[in-house]
Each structure stands twice: as structure tokens, then as C-alpha cells.
């Protein structure tokens, strides 16, 4: 409940202030969002499994975002940024799908 409230507050804050992303970080924002999405769905599944933990969630969120952005940054420096971001998106996408499937099993018992 508090988490849902936090999400709402975050969206409202983002719309209100519309912070400018530095030009250098702009290419890594979408990949960071996808990584964060994976961490959030993982947290939700863990919550429904009854094994949710604050610390693990925070650490997985931060490390997901940082590592995803770092991999794409490294790829950009090596000239394979596009391919590496595709790889990251594929892996994160598969994780998100399987997590969402687990959540669905919990919610609908199907």
C-alpha cells in the first residue's frame, strides 16, 4: 500500500518538476528504466511469495539500474552499444515476463 503510494508520489513529482536529464546520461535512461522495472516486478513477486525484504529490494534495484547503464555505456565506448542494449533488454524482458507469470499465478491461482 505504501509502495503504491510511493509510485504515485514519484509520478506526480516527475510530472511536476520534469527534471532535465544531463545530455550524457540521456541514452542510458530507457535501459535504466527497464532494469528498474525488472527489480520492481521481482520485489512484487517476492512480496507475494512472502519473502520480501527491504534491503534486498533496494540493493537489487540500485545494482540493476547501475549495471544495466554501465553495460550500455561500456558498449557505447566499444562501438557495440546498440547490440549490448538489445542483449540487456532481452534478458531483462525474459525475467520480467517470468516474474509477471509468477505474480499472475499468485493473484489468480492459475
Amino acid at each position, binding site marked *: 500500500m505504501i509502495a503504491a503510494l*510511493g509510485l504515485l508520489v514519484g509520478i506526480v513529482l*516527475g510530472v511536476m518538476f520534469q527534471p532535465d536529464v544531463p545530455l550524457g546520461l540521456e541514452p542510458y535512461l530507457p535501459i535504466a528504466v527497464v532494469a528498474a522495472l525488472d527489480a520492481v516486478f521481482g520485489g512484487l513477486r517476492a512480496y507475494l511469495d512472502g519473502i520480501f525484504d527491504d534491503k534486498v529490494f533496494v540493493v537489487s534495484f540500485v545494482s540493476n539500474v547501475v549495471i544495466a547503464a554501465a553495460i550500455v555505456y561500456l558498449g557505447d565506448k566499444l562501438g557495440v552499444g546498440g547490440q549490448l542494449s538489445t542483449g540487456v533488454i532481452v534478458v531483462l524482458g525474459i525475467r520480467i515476463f517470468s516474474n509477471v507469470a509468477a505474480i499472475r499465478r499468485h493473484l489468480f491461482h492459475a
Partner: protein
Amino acid sequence: MPDTAAPPNDRVNTPLLTLITQQSLDEDYRHVADRKALEPGAQRRTSGIAAIVVAVFGVLVTVAALQTQQGEDVRSASRTTLITQIDEGRANLSELQRRIVRLRELNVGLQSHRDEVTSDQLGAEARVQRLAASTGFGAVTGPGVKITVDDNPDGTLVRDRDLRPAVNGLWQAGAEAIAVNGNRLTARSAIRNSGIAIRVNNRSLSPPYVITAIGNENTLQANLMQTTSGLVFRNTVESLGFPWSMDNADQLFLPAAPPRIARLRSAEAGTAEQNQNQHRKEAPQ
């Protein structure tokens, strides 16, 4: 890597996609849960940090969405600009193509004009050559008559007035070009004495005097003797006892008169009326 539920061999043999699907949930949740189960005393913290992190996630999603939307605006704006530029370029191109067509037509007109001018020029050049030949300022060759006169051995010298009738007679007899000792006669040439020497075109001659005339070699001699000047010349030469001869020549070469005597000093081109107007215009200055 911490130990996983599956033995290492299984992990190595598992296909990558299957592995990703199996481990989609962070194992750390399970580990922490297991540890907590062993230590029932550990207190459970409130989910305040989780809420903050979720709020951060919300901000991230919002900002990314807004950024993408703005980027889309910029892209579509630049697309519109590009379309406008393309249209302008196309209009410019068709304008330039029309200009090419116009210039081509102009070029064709100018070329035909140039051809006209060139043919005019060729005609004028041919006319200049003909005029130069007939006025004495161009070299000519052809058949004609050669008259040679020398001083009398007893000391009587040939004078200008003795040669003049021969030249006048040759002109009347139909000569086309005349030279005296290689000095071509023009409208501005005179045969006159300067002291004892005869001068033609300001050049002193020395005897014997050779008058070469180009004309019809069949009729020139006969015609000459039918003119008054020709008779005067023959009478003068014979009465004064100058040795002389007159022969036909198949090939005579007459050089051009020096161009310096072609210069007009006072005469101006144009009719008298035109020149008067010209002077009236220049007078006030």
C-alpha cells in the same frame, strides 16, 4: 557465486534462456528468507525505504516517458523542417532548370549571331585583301609588262616627268598594279625629282628604271601605245635617246607599299555632313 539450488554441473548444462527463466527472482530474497527462518528473533523493518525506491522508480519512468515525448516532438519538427527544405530545394531546382533552358535558347541565338558575324568578318577580310591588292598595300603576282629605261650614255638623265607618262599610260591601258624599281605605286605615291635622283614613296631610285605593271599581257602593250600618255612617253624617250625596252612577263611579283604611307593625316572617315556635325559637337568642349 554463492551456491545455488542446482548443483554446478546442472547449472553449466542448463541452456541460458532456461537459466534466466529459472532465476528470474533474485535468489537473495530466498537466502534472506532462509536466514530469517533460522533467526526468528530478527525484527522486520518497515517498508519506508522500499516506498522511497518505488517513488524513485516512478520519477525515472515519468522522466523517461517525457524525454521520449520531447524527442519525438523535436524529431517531427525536424522532419517538417526537412520537408520544407526539400520543397524549397525542388522549387529552386526547377527554377534553375528553367534558367538552363532559357540560357540554352539564348546561347543558340548568340551562336547563330556569332556565325553571322564570323561570316561577315570573313567577307570583310576578303574585301580588305581585294582592296589591299588594288590600292597597292598588298603584294600581288601575275603576268604583265616590264618597261626598262636607262639614262642616255651621253649624260642626259631620266627625270620624273619622263617616267610619269609611262605610269599614267599603263593605268589608262588597264594595268592593275604598278611598281617602279620595286616600289609599289598607290594613290598616295608620287614620282618626283629630288635633286638629280628620282624618288618614289620617299625612296631614291637609281637607274636603270624598271616599271613593272600587272595586267592583261595580251593587250597591255598595244593599249599603252594607243593612249596619249603612252605616245608622249615613247616620243620623249626616243627623242632624248634613252635606251629602253618593253617586254611581256609571265610572272611578275609586286611587293606591297610600305604601310607608313597608308596613314591618313588629315582626312577623316565619313561624309562632309557627318564630320561637320562631329566638329560642332566637339566645339563646346
